[in-house]
């Protein structure tokens, strides 16, 4: 499955935030629970060379604009060849979210999934992309 990320939506302005929050940052209005798919576009990313205690160095961080509207901060396994605007999939590994770059083939398959085809295969691909890149790491990133 493509990761489903818990989120919430403001009834007044439509802002979607992830993880869910009781109130919209801009309105004192209770938010409605919703979910967003773990697929989106890189807004920005950085490699932190002196991360805080409990995180391995270097630490890859990215801000991702999810298709469902929320922006999401997550870890990455790899930022080489990553650009602002790159398509990424997000996956939880031990309750921590990671992004992985989606290649052209993966993107094409995602398109077909949206068109209602081959969903399972795409899900398997995004999952394997994340795992392949991430499992090289030695963990200890949950802080």
């Amino acid at each position, binding site marked *: 499955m493509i990761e489903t990320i818990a989120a919430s939506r403001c009834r007044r302005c439509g802002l979607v935030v992830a993880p869910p929050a009781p109130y919209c940052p801009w309105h004192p209005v209770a938010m409605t629970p919703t979910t967003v798919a773990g697929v989106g576009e890189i807004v920005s990313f950085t490699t*932190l060379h002196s991360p805080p205690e409990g995180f391995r160095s270097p*630490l890859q961080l990215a*801000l991702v604009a999810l298709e469902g509207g929320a922006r999401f901060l997550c*870890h990455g396994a790899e930022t080489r060849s990553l650009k*602002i605007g790159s398509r990424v999939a997000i996956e939880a590994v031990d309750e921590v979210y990671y992004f992985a770059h989606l290649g052209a083939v993966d993107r094409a398959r995602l398109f077909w999934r949206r068109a209602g085809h081959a969903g399972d295969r795409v899900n398997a691909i995004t999952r394997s992309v994340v795992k392949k890149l991430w499992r090289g790491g030695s963990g200890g990133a949950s802080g």
Partner: protein
Amino acid sequence: MRDVWIAGAGMTRVGRRTEGLRDLMAEAAHAALATASIERPDAIVVAAMNPEEFLGDGNFASNVATHLGFADVPTIRIETATSSGAAGFYAGFAQVAAGLARRVLVVGGEKMTHLPTPRVSELIGRSIDPYERSYGATMPALAGLVTRALMARQPIGEREISQVSVKNHAHAARNPYAHFREPVSLERVMSSRMVADPLRLLHCCPISDGAAAVVLTAERTPVRVAGIGQGTDTLAIRHRYDLTSFRATQAAARAAFAMAGFGPARVDFAEVHDAFAPFELISLEDLGLVPPGKAVRATMHGETALDGRLPINPSGGLKARGHPLAATGLAQLVECVWQLTGRAEGRQVDGRVALAHSIGGLATNNWVTILESA
């Protein structure tokens, strides 16, 4: 609302200091009171971001007031993260403007260099949204995200960002109160170690100790507070839709200029919150001091240097004067007062209107203050 004037200003040398915070604050406060020729203020505002954890000291308003010899003077403590000094100035301004007090001492400072750097980074990082912090986000990390987004939006390269550091170090070399007194070359900035890609070490302000103070008064002096404004934004950076400008700065500038009754074209020089070099470029545009998209050109053409059309950070800025957190917003105003009254020896600029801009957290709680020669 009554007019509010600045009667006195003083600060300590910024850097690695062996004195305690209370002693640094006493040095700055007594210097400001001495230039104001005032022995005892009606009220005191103390600005300190986190003495509880940096020092283990609480009840900090009473702590400082007693240490200064003002145990009988009503004192409050103010905090808005890294802009606490500017917020303290606002609190003092409000007391005088409202007629609650005639003469208010505002003193701010921080002492950090006695702690290991990772510990200091972690404590400063507590001003970040808890969820983002749980992913290892620190101030440099979030500033790295902002910088990369800025470089993608505008034709800004590493060279342009580095030029801000070169300029501000050159200014600080002329400021005896600055943390760094040595100029740095563009090559040295661009080859310093990577901190949060694309931000390098010499794009980031140092960890500094220091204190600064001003005395505000209802009586006429050579420097008037023309306007002050606060602007805010979401704690979490992921809830913002634009990383390349700061809403909190824009809102603070709008409020400050509205109070002043004039616009940014009247500003002759400014102290701008360059905790990270690219923030100076972002802020110049957010403040309206240069048109959108023109900050790089102004910087590369020397317009923002000491001898330029619009000197920015004549003190050396956070980058090179140093950033003792709650001292910074006040140190900016002290520099503006010294410049406006011809007491900035070695780095004196011309001008009648000065602007100070202070960022709290990752631009969640910002201030703009405008001072004018009477």
